């Protein structure tokens, strides 16, 4: 698809009218980025770098001050297409508590479909399917506030995939979860990408999560500063640290060894690769 997700020289500012004169805070400074259908892209950047603002441009919550944003083929400025865009570009937020609307899990998953005016029978089918995809079908009649953080977040994801979107934007979906919840959510996200072919844009502060993506985009001061496969991104250890980010521990270890003059690749991002490389190193010596 042409213009699946695309930002062209986008500028966006938040204006605080409470002050006199109004305070203008430019968050996106002419950002360019294109995401293709089926990709799994991780977006990194410290707090205030503009990554969440960018994500909200893709589903027409934020409209650019300058430049154009295209989502699933439509320009987000086209008001008639807003519901089409929102339906096809789903969004999951950080706090699972603040995005569940209904008092029963299945009612919540049905919420978007009800808004879209889908036939009741079709809603039922899609709700059941979505709940099965995220592994929460047995909990369909539970109250959301009795679930764990990871379970709530999976319900929120089910509420989005029930719309059958082409793409899902996730804004730090694991930030408030414990390690178990994080694993559950990540597993769900990867499954959606691999098995259902949903395009994933994952905003995160966890480098290990970003290492799972096909592509990592680093945003700093409203600009894209690195855009590459995770191996190439994380091998730039110094640059990553200079913008307030981190790299996976294994990458840092290999980078330190390389710096000390040993023959190790700095493009190692997974535990398996690291163990293998270190083992070789010992063997050789």
């Amino acid at each position, binding site marked *: 698809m042409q213009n699946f997700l695309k930002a062209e020289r986008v500028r966006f500012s938040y204006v605080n009218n409470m002050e006199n004169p109004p305070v203008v805070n430019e968050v996106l400074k002419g950002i360019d980025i294109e995401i293709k259908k089926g990709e799994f892209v991780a977006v990194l950047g410290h707090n205030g770098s503009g990554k969440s603002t960018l994500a909200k441009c893709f589903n027409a919550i934020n409209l650019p001050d300058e430049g154009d944003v295209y989502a699933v083929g439509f320009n987000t400025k086209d008001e008639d297409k807003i519901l089409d865009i929102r339906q096809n570009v789903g969004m999951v937020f950080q706090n699972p508590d*603040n995005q569940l609307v209904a008092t029963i899990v299945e009612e919540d998953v*049905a919420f978007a479909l009800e808004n879209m005016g889908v036939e009741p029978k079709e809603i039922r089918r899609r709700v059941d399917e979505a709940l099965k995809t995220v592994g929460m079908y047995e909990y369909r009649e539970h109250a959301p506030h009795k679930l764990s953080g990871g379970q709530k977040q999976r319900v929120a994801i089910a509420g989005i995939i029930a719309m059958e979107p082409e793409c899902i934007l996730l804004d730090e979906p694991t930030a408030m979860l414990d390690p178990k919840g994080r694993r559950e959510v990540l597993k769900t996200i990867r499954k959606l990408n691999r098995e259902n072919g949903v395009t994933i844009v994952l905003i995160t502060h966890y480098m290990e999560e970003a290492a799972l993506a096909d592509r990592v985009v680093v945003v700093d001061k409203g600009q894209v500063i690195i855009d590459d496969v995770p191996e190439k991104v994380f091998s730039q250890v110094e640059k990553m640290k200079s913008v307030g980010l981190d790299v996976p521990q294994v990458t840092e270890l290999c980078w330190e060894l390389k710096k000390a003059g040993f023959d190790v690749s700095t493009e190692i991002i997974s535990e398996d690769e690291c163990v293998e490389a270190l083992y070789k190193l010992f063997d050789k010596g």
Partner: protein
Amino acid sequence: MLKDITIGQFFPGNSFVHKLDPRFKIVFTIIFIVMLFVADSFAGLGIGIVFVLMAFLISKIPFAMMLKSLKPILSIIIFTSVLNILFIRTGDVVFKWAFLTITKQGLTTAAFMVIRIVALIIGTSLLTYTTSPIVLTDAIERLLSPLKKIKVPVHALAMMMTIALRFIPTLVEETDKIMSAQKARGADLESGNIIQRAKALVPILVPLFVSSFRRAEELALAMECRCYHGGDGRTRMKQLKCGYRDFVALFVLAGFMAVVIVFNVYGI
């Protein structure tokens, strides 16, 4: 723990009562309340009691829950019966001491009131026990939908009710947390006079309001992302369908009502 409090106290089940159309259930409850107030004899009230007990049995709600529903209004029951007993001074005197006069009529009226209130509470709690809050909200929205024609925002009101139900447990938990946090900073919530105590609530209420606003903002955004645009063109996953059950129940209730009226007419 504060978070164990449940609102609405719905007991999921599969009984005849559970399966009734919630719209009908609301109407039945209203008819039942009317019946209690129409009845002017113990016999008439007895019919009402028989009806509600029967419904309770069919619903398979534990009997203990019926008593539990009465607990919060126990003080009201005692208060009204004492008032009736002490202030009705007509009729045969049963007991007299100093300025205390207890008459037979006072006792009867008190008993009559108590039975009426108890039946009323049991009946309405049966509605909330067997109907989930969201279904109830939904039913109210549909029952009131004719009001849309005169521009009453029925959908928005129902949506507000749903969100309130959804967030009450979350905010209760949050209050609990903020209270602990301020106590850890030495806040004293338990001693002092009324003004001091009211003042001591500021450190609890301000953070609670701030966080409620934040939650509201995030929720509104999440709803927008899920294509929410008001009530126009909305469908519902769960369709309310009335079936033979509802009409069976309606006829049974109408029968009971008829008996109560007959009792009234013949003064039984």
